[in-house]
């Protein structure tokens, strides 16, 4: 299990380095596809099977297809070696700081307060949306997708409806950006 985690994380790290350091744009895009697929596998290893499938379908299968289409349509030229200028220094500093913070947080443990929620202990499969503890076995019994759905459409209803507005805005933006200005 730890071996699996290590392999997946190593692959994700290598492919994300590939995104930054590839000379050709198409390799960067495909390395990003590999990175998000490895993230999907990480979700799977953390018992989030629905998110694993969603990440594959949406991120690796839709968003990255858009990226790859753009690379094919615009055919950007191969770049020179990445220059070691201010941006690179800022980037590397950012990575180091975030890694250090993650280590510290993982050692000390992160907790969040559930005082704002009025939850009870684990519900049953017929009542998946009044719980705020999600032990693995209970979730597996009730069904991973059903538990996610139970939370999403009751407790997190407002973000869900706002998402529809967000998608509408995106659609309008897409049409606007690609309008034929000769009209």
């Amino acid at each position, binding site marked *: 299990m730890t071996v699996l985690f290590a392999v997946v994380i190593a692959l994700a790290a290598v492919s994300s380095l590939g995104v930054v350091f590839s000379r050709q744009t198409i390799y960067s895009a495909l390395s990003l596809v590999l990175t998000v697929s490895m993230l999907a596998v990480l979700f*799977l*290893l953390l*018992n989030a*099977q*629905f998110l694993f499938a*969603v990440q594959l*379908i*949406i991120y690796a*299968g*839709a*968003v990255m*297809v*858009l990226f790859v*289409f*753009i690379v*094919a*349509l*615009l*055919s950007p030229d191969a770049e020179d070696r990445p220059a070691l200028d201010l941006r690179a220094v800022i980037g590397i500093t950012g990575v180091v700081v975030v890694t250090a913070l993650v280590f510290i947080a993982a050692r000390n443990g992160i907790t969040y307060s559930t005082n704002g929620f009025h939850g009870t202990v684990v519900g049953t499969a*017929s009542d*998946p949306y009044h719980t705020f503890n999600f032990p*693995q076995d209970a979730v*597996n019994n009730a*069904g*991973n*997708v*059903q538990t*996610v*759905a*139970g939370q*999403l*459409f*009751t407790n997190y*209803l407002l973000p*869900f*409806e706002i*998402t*529809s*507005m967000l*998608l*509408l805005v*995106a*659609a*309008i933006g*897409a*049409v606007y950006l*690609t*309008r034929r200005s000769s009209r």
Partner: protein
Amino acid sequence: MLSGYAPILFFFGICAAFAVLAQFLNAALGPKRPSPTKDLPYESGIVPRESARRRFSVSFYVTAMLFIIFDVESIFLFPWATIVRELKVFGIVEMGIFIATLLVGLLYVWRKGALRWD
């Protein structure tokens, strides 16, 4: 639950091995007779003149963007579909609002002609 997925990893290895093996066997067994004509891409017999990397229609871009939007919609519909019976009327109303908003988007895109010729 995770152990249920382990066979997939194993099968994935088999599929990858099969794909690689097939190509490798072919490369090993097939004859190699290079010639300058064989190196050119096929264009019905004429010699290709310009590079293949040109610009193409923007409809591909629009299609991909709209696909993302409606794929996200479908990914919300899947979990809703699994608990429709528990959510009852409340569920229909909330999903109705969601689908209605996105139908407005689809109609807008349709009327603006972004779905045309591709």
